[in-house]
């Protein structure tokens, strides 16, 4: 029996992540309308909203299009965990007993090419950008280069993860990149940041996602298939971890924020990694997916080489990972990206994922985001 402080997702909405003429805000508004329709509610029913966007304007201004109902609307910006933080805030507003039903929305639209970094805003010093080191892509190349050296991950495995992403993306009508690519095409594309090639990286993109959430004991007023939100956790880095935009690292090594976030989320949900049926893991690039498999507790460091060769992370495998094509096929609109993962998991748990539906009636689903400046967010859903 659901408790009054449990939280359920009762409505989901997503826009196409393909490049379009739409503004970031258009994506947000469209996603909200779709999520409301999915839950059979109206904007007037929403008691609160949390909106996340990194580069596409203040989310609360969308009330002038959705309706001026006077609801509490709070904007969230929290690096790559922006969408996850909007969700986290919404969940806790319900858990605290403040509200019964509300919405979390995330959207963005970024200019083409690698993220342009404002080093002064990030507290890094102007010289850091001037000298050509303020590029997120370098961090991913360097973390992965060291990881491959330490744990024996091969270039073939990088190619296989890329191939899987674009195959899964080809089965997702909302994905940006829907053309399947072979392992060889992924490996042989232009080298951007050794050992990572063009098709091993995701690109900044556009899109919007919205989720209607409510007290779990009221969920059946909205849907026959509520999805329970068992954990939503956000953590920042501790001293000694290796993060993007680190001008220096400590001599000692500490696990990154993903490890802390994952452990806290499993503790909150009262389950372990072995109970998870499907996982959406931050795949800014193929190596991130590989490293995050271990950092989230799904395997030991180095085991990925065997797991991926055996197809265990394919849709038909033991632990399907990034079933919607992940960031690699969908791009990374920062405000929407973490919520896209949750959207996909809700679809999969409802059994509505169509061509890419995971078999065996999945019951527990996991999402993970990681990004600048050393921040991670995890959710665990179940039905």
């Amino acid at each position, binding site marked *: 029996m659901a408790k009054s402080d449990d939280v359920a997702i009762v409505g989901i909405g997503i826009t196409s992540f393909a490049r379009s003429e739409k503004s970031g805000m258009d994506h947000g508004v469209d996603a909200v309308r779709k999520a409301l329709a999915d839950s059979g509610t109206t904007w007037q029913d929403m008691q609160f909203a949390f909106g996340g966007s990194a580069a596409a304007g203040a989310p609360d201004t969308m009330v002038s299009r959705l309706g001026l109902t006077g609801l509490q609307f709070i904007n969230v910006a929290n690096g790559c965990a922006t969408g996850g933080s909007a969700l986290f805030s919404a969940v806790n507003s319900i858990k605290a007993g403040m509200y019964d039903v509300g919405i979390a929305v995330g959207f963005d639209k970024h200019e083409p090419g690698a993220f342009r970094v404002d080093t002064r805003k990030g507290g890094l010093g102007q*010289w850091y950008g001037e*000298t050509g080191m*303020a*590029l997120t892509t370098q961090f991913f*190349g360097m973390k992965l*280069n060291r990881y491959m050296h330490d744990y024996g991950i091969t270039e073939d495995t990088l190619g296989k993860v890329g191939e899987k992403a674009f195959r899964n993306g080809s089965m997702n009508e909302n994905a940006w990149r829907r053309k399947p690519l072979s392992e060889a095409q992924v490996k042989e594309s232009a080298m951007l940041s050794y050992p990572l090639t063009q098709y091993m990286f995701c690109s900044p993109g556009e899109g919007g996602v919205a989720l209607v959430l409510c007290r779990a004991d009221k969920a059946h007023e909205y849907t026959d298939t509520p999805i329970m939100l068992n954990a939503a956790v956000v953590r920042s880095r501790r001293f000694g971890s290796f993060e993007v935009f680190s001008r*220096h690292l400590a001599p000692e090594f500490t696990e990154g924020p993903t490890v802390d976030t994952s452990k806290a989320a499993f503790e909150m949900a009262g389950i372990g990694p072995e109970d998870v049926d499907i996982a959406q893991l931050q795949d800014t690039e193929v190596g991130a997916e590989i490293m995050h498999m271990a950092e989230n507790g799904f395997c030991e460091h180095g085991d990925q080489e065997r797991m991926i060769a055996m197809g265990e992370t394919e849709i038909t495998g033991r632990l399907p990972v990034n079933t919607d094509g992940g960031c690699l096929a969908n791009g990374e609109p920062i405000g929407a990206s973490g919520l896209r993962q949750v959207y996909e998991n809700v679809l999969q748990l409802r059994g509505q994922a169509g061509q890419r539906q995971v078999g065996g009636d999945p019951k527990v689903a996991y999402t993970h985001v990681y990004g600048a400046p050393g921040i991670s967010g995890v959710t665990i859903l179940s039905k």
Partner: protein
Amino acid sequence: MPQVSVDETLFTWPSDELRLLGSRCIDCANHMFPRQDDCPKCAGNSTEDVELDTKGTLWTWTIQGYPPKAPPYVGPSDPKTFEPYGVGYIELDGQLKVETRLTINTPEELQIGMEMQLTTIPLYTNDDGDEVVTFAFEPIN
């Protein structure tokens, strides 16, 4: 051509003996680069200036294969003439791992664990006709 530093807080310049300018926490001995007054390790706020070691080992590396956006980048970024450049972390024993440009830009010549030393590289020529330089590490032979 006269040379100037991209940022005088980063390394001794001009100097016969090039050194990176770091900080050391008086309370917990944590080293930092560039200089800062607060210590992220012990959350203290008393640090002293130190000059960091000039030799270390390559901890990890990558090659920047496409031109960075300009701004903020001030080096050559024309896609037609862009030359990839190396970036890495150099482990300075007992101090820290410093992120740095590398003088090498081919994977075949870079190996984790190889010995490296501090140098400078040119970035661009400014409006005064000075060559602006930044710190970098190069292999020791």
